[in-house]
């Protein structure tokens, strides 16, 4: 493992790759800091660009952007109480009060240090646990892979919004994935004689349309204005503060890793759980929400650790741990790579280069964040009327460039309108992508499993690993259904008790 990692470090230190990583951190900083351009959208916009790149460079770029956007969401969360990313929501609870007290630089410093440490702990966990998990998963056969795909689909339970929408989205994605030539029999499905549809519905048009185009439309229809960013002096290494937050940092980083590795939980939940734990363990819980340094350290360490942890199931099992990792999984498939147990053996050079890249990225965050905040305050004030047209053009030209297909561009615009309308219902769009990405795996493994068992469905329950995975999936979904029902029942009882 150490040899492989050192090999990865050697790859990362090639000048071109270092440049790619630096660009990724820079792009991620801007994307995460600008409200309206999330990590998902940045990864989506850059997907077509990476298509022409070498796979190692492409995934170093995408994962580094993913890592740095999770970090940079804290900037606007602390300065405006407008989190740049959902993961930074908890950071605003104590970060913004510190800004109001004139301690914005101190708050940003705590956030930067905590993010870097959380990210480093998460990356170490990624390097250690991915090969272990993958070696266990090597014993998997078709029923286990199908069960894994089912488990991956339960991520919909954590995407927010109504669960029924998540389930419909995942089923729609699975349904859309059936369009094209059936890989096992060569039968065309839902192609209506079109050669474009025979190739199937491309991931790029769907992802770019649903996320980027719909976001531009949403922003164009909005009336929100951005406050100008004021100058701040960031102080990262403050020994008194570091002593104060040391315990919170360690606890939150480990908690973040543990939560991030679980498929379907995500960095936002990690930040929330970690914040509440920080309050519980604190000797001064009354200070939280009023500008407590631990209130920034806990969510920031946890969300960055969880973001790295979410990559463990992606690389080891081929199932995404969060929304953005679902899109990165799509990017792997687009490059003809299939993450999963065999991936560690077949593409170990690529994987360890990505791991080493993420390791370096956390140091880059520490080094570059201070000058970034200082130098790019003007860039952060760029109005959306300037960014919007550039995003739309990148989407159109980028989508066209993947297959030189105008059909894909029309499809992308269609999905853009669909995404815009669905977002009005707070529909979790990632659910559609999950279904689209996991659909082909789920179908082919289901059919192979049933062929193995001569049509006996109990094959999924008679094998211990697949039975466990399906059990976990059912348990996760049941909890998502039962908890709101229980809450509703309690509210009803309270209401009727008050009425009496």
């Amino acid at each position, binding site marked *: 493992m150490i040899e492989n990692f050192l090999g990865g470090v050697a790859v990362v230190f090639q000048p071109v790759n270092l440049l790619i990583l630096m660009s990724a951190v820079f792009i991620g900083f801007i994307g995460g800091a600008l409200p309206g351009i999330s990590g998902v959208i940045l990864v989506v916009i850059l997907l077509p*660009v990476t298509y*022409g*790149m070498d796979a190692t460079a492409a995934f170093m770029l995408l994962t580094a952007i993913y890592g740095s956007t999770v970090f940079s969401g804290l900037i606007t969360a602390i300065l405006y109480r407008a989190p740049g990313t959902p993961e930074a929501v908890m950071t605003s609870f104590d970060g913004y009060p510190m800004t109001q007290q004139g301690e914005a630089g101190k708050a940003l410093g705590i956030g930067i240090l905590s993010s870097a440490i959380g990210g480093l702990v998460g990356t170490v966990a990624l390097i250690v646990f991915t090969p272990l998990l993958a070696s266990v998963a090597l014993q998997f056969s078709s029923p286990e892979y199908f069960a894994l795909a089912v488990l991956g689909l339960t991520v919909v339970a954590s995407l927010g919004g*109504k669960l*029924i929408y998540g*389930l*419909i989205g995942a*089923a*729609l994605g*699975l*349904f859309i994935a*059936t369009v094209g030539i*059936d890989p*096992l*029999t060569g*039968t065309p*499905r*839902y192609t*209506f004689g079109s050669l474009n549809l025979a190739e199937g519905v491309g991931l790029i048009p769907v992802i770019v349309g649903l996320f980027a*185009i719909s976001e*531009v*439309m*949403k922003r*164009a*229809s*909005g*009336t929100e204005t951005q406050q100008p960013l004021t100058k701040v002096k960031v102080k990262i290494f403050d020994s008194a503060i570091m002593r104060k937050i040391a315990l919170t940092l360690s606890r939150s980083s480990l908690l973040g890793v543990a939560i991030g590795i679980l498929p379907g939980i995500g960095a936002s939940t990690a930040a929330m759980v970690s914040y509440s734990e920080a309050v519980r363990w604190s000797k001064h819980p009354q200070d939280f929400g009023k500008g407590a340094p631990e209130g920034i350290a806990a969510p920031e360490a946890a969300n960055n650790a969880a973001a790295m942890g979410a990559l463990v199931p992606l690389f080891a099992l081929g199932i995404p741990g969060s929304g953005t990792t679902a899109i990165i999984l799509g990017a792997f498939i687009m490059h003809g790579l299939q993450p999963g147990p065999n991936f560690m053996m077949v593409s170990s050079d690529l994987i360890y280069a990505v791991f080493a890249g993420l390791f370096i990225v956390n140091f880059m965050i520490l080094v570059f964040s201070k000058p970034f905040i200082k130098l790019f305050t003007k860039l952060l004030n760029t*109005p*959306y*009327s*300037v960014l*919007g*047209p*550039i995003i*739309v*053009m*990148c989407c*159109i*030209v*980028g989508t*066209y*460039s993947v297959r*030189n297909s*105008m059909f894909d*561009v*029309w499809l992308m*615009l269609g999905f*853009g*309108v669909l995404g*815009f309308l669905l977002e009005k*219902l707070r529909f979790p769009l990632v659910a559609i992508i999950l279904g689209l990405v996991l659909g082909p795996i789920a*179908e082919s493994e*289901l*059919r192979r499993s*049933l*062929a193995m068992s*001569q*049509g006996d469905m109990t094959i999924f329950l008679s094998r211990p690993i697949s039975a466990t995975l399906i059990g976990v999936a059912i348990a996760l979904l049941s909890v998502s259904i039962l908890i709101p029902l229980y809450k509703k029942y309690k509210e009803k009882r309270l209401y009727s008790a008050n009425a009496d």
Partner: protein
Amino acid sequence: MSYRNYVFPSALLIFLLASFYPTMQLPGAGEVSTFIGPRLWPFTLWVILVVLVITLFSITRSREKRENANNEERFNQGSPCNKRGANVSILSAHEISHALARSKHWVILVLAVLYTVLMQLVGFLIATGVFSLVCTMVLGTRHKGAILATVLIAMGLIQGVFVTLLNIPLP
């Protein structure tokens, strides 16, 4: 009954009804050499979607009933809900003017469609220039320097990244 709540489930239902015939036209296990035919998976998904849409209809219906009951209760109690009723016409006029201002997103979509068409007619570089100019203005930029900068950045980005760096042939 508020029909707006039923638009999404109804649209899904229409989509499912339209896809039923093509789904049933797919060959089953008996018509192909493999143990499981290409129809099984899409048909299973179709059934799951129908169940989910029916569930969505029932959830929407029960939520609407609950909301109606709550509104009725508030109305009977003479709660602030009644007082809000007096402001409805003023609020609506305000909302209408907002709605008109908010139709920009459809203009952006039309511009994106025109950009796609124009790209095939006059080439990507001119189309990019025209699109970025119009789109920036539609989105509210009035400063000439900012508009010019956006046009130049957009053209440079497309030419530099896609054509020069990645060698992608654009129309």
